[in-house]
């Protein structure tokens, strides 16, 4: 694939691109990327652990680091990238801000927005020919019924995550799952994904329970004493199971489960052993270099959202510097073509699925301190890409651009 790309470049691109002396004399070309985010109201006191932090530049720092990287390459071949950060205040008019941006012409936008806001922007008439890189969401529906041709999704969907965990559990021969599900709509989607993964990989749901936990204030002197009695009650079911598969997308109770369950069983899902594109602990496939570089830049660990922001800029960099695509529509075409590939410290090139614009990628399985494994697991095969064993494959897609 890449060979084809490079050959195409050799054939199609003027000599000056490859000739250093010519490049040195050429004027520096500038490329501007809009980073669009909203300052959502957030109360850090609802985070269950004091160790969890919520830095103001979450996500943005990843994009900023990647801009620095692109410009390191760009200075050698005459490109300069700029990140235009646009922050809409909580309660501000996102649609109006986005419309103003888009009135200047088709844009390349990195979206650090929640699902409803992402759709608000992508559905603006003036966004029709824009390229929107969604670096934040995981919701299935944005890749299924509510997919959009102008939106590309960088982080794994919910279904990719449950499949990633499911493959590992099947490989471990832990096929009996007890689902415990929180109260939100996304918890219900995640729980449905768990059932889908069980059906795909031959696991069994032996018990299922909804849990309406109201965490209230999490800052208390003796909170754990009540947790210690509540969680065994919540997890006592008849019949045996191998794991508790928790669906708690908003971190209401899942982190209270490990070591508090009725039976001595591990916890996987949205807490416990979690599936993600990135964690600050991941170091395989040269990710160590990325982690060290990010820490030098941001003075903190690199989160999954930072990775999303980093990937977004690197993808744009490939389109501009490798494929010489500088406007959104040709860039979209390139991202969906066989010529495109981005390196993301996963030991293989990452590409987009044509049927839903989802980045196909290996998915990490981790605890807060360690990478436990990486899916797809050995032995799960696919006629196209083994990474397409994760999430909605082409025959299952509900996305029709």
């Amino acid at each position, binding site marked *: 694939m890449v*060979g084809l790309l490079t050959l195409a470049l050799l054939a199609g691109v003027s000599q000056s691109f*490859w000739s*250093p002396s010519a490049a040195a004399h050429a004027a520096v070309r500038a490329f501007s990327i809009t980073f669009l985010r909203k300052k959502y109201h957030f109360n850090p006191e609802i985070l269950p652990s004091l160790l969890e932090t919520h830095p103001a530049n979450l996500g943005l720092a990843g994009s900023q680091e990647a801009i620095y*990287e692109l410009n390191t*390459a760009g200075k050698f*071949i005459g490109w300069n990238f700029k990140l235009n950060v646009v922050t809409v205040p909580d309660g501000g008019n996102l649609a109006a801000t986005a419309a103003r941006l888009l009135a200047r012409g088709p844009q390349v936008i990195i979206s650090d927005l929640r699902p409803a806001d992402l759709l608000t922007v992508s559905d603006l008439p003036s966004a029709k020919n824009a390229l929107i890189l969604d670096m934040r969401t995981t919701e299935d529906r944005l890749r299924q019924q509510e997919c959009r041709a102008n939106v590309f999704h960088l982080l794994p969907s919910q279904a990719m995550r449950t499949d990633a965990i499911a493959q590992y559990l099947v490989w471990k021969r832990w096929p009996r799952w007890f689902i415990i599900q929180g109260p939100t709509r996304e918890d219900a989607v995640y729980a449905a994904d768990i059932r889908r993964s069980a059906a795909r990989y031959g696991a069994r749901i032996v018990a299922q329970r909804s849990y309406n936990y109201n965490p209230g204030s999490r800052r208390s002197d003796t909170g754990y004493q009540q947790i210690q009695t509540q969680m065994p009650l919540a997890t006592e079911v008849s019949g045996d199971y191998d794991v508790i598969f928790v669906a708690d997308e908003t971190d209401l109770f899942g982190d209270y489960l490990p070591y508090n369950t009725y039976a001595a069983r591990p916890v996987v899902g949205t807490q416990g052993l979690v599936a993600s594109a990135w964690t600050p602990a991941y170091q395989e496939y*040269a990710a160590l270099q990325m982690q060290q570089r990010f820490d030098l830049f941001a003075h903190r660990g690199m989160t999954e959202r930072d990775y999303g922001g980093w990937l977004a800029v690197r993808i744009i960099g490939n389109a501009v510097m490798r494929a010489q695509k500088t406007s959104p529509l040709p860039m979209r075409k390139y991202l969906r073509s066989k010529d495109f*590939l981005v390196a993301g410290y996963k*030991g293989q090139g990452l590409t987009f699925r044509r049927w839903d614009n989802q980045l196909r990628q290996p998915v990490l399985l981790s605890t807060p301190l360690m990478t436990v494994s990486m899916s797809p697991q050995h032995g799960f095969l696919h006629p196209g890409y*083994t990474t397409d064993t994760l999430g909605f494959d082409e025959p299952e897609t509900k996305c029709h651009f």
Partner: protein
Amino acid sequence: MPFLRATGGRTAPALLAVLLCSLAATARASELFVSNEVDDTVTVLNGETYKIIATIPTDQRPRGIFATPDHKYVLVCDGDSSNIDVIDTKTMKVVRKIDTGPDPETLAMSPSGDKVYVSNENNALVTIINFATGKWITQIPVGIEPEGLGVSRRGHTVVVVSETTSMAHFIDTKTWKVVANILVDTRPRIAQFTRDYRELWVSSEVGGTVSVINPATHQIVHIINFHIPGIDKEYIGPVGVRFTPDDRTAFVALGRANRVAVVDRKTYKVEKYILVGQRPWQIAFSPHHKRLFVVNGLTNDVTIIDVASLQAVKSVPVGRLPWGIAVIP
């Protein structure tokens, strides 16, 4: 096999020299030095029996490893200790440490051995060091995550590849300036000149290709692709590249495809894939190029390939996560 080469001398002293040579050879076989990234050691194997004859402790995270042209020393980059361990190949001991600056990943030397070229992976730099004094001559900013270094015939040019910037940077060793930057496929690892120095081959691990570059014009003249039946393309990750002495054949280690490709240097066609251990990266020849040694990172061993028959003969254990290899005659 010194008898094969020692011809022409008919006088007694010449014969004596031949005998002495052969005695020296039996007294001391060639040796393989393998850096073990996780163990913080270098494993030394006897080049004929492949038995472990020494395990040399190093500083932290030894990766790039290089024998000096006179074979007196083997130099190892200790990434997490910011230095090079200099191993005396007679005593098998670390006799000296050279400060390299942060995170040295790998190294090369000038043809005469007077200068050491180091890629500082985390700092996007190449550090040039006077080997005798250990003093830094200069540091050159290059792309992000620099790794493999290639040195031209007379040492006028050093090429370094940067993994995250995906470029081959040509450095003029008179001015220490970067004179050319060539965008190659994603995540380049190694830059290797052909024996005749007419081509520079750059392996791209994530791109899955090898770019053949004309070093005179700085143009990519060909891209080599690899297709292995039954192996997904995303597992093909070319890293190590070596050429036979006649320059007719190249060997390319393919990472997670667990194979070494045999490539015709002239036609660029892949002639064979040799199954080795898991995740081969670096490769090296035996002194007379009869064997190719393949370092397998995930199976903790070195596969020995017979160059004439292109068969993997056997694999021998080394330390954990073996990374690089240097061979001394």
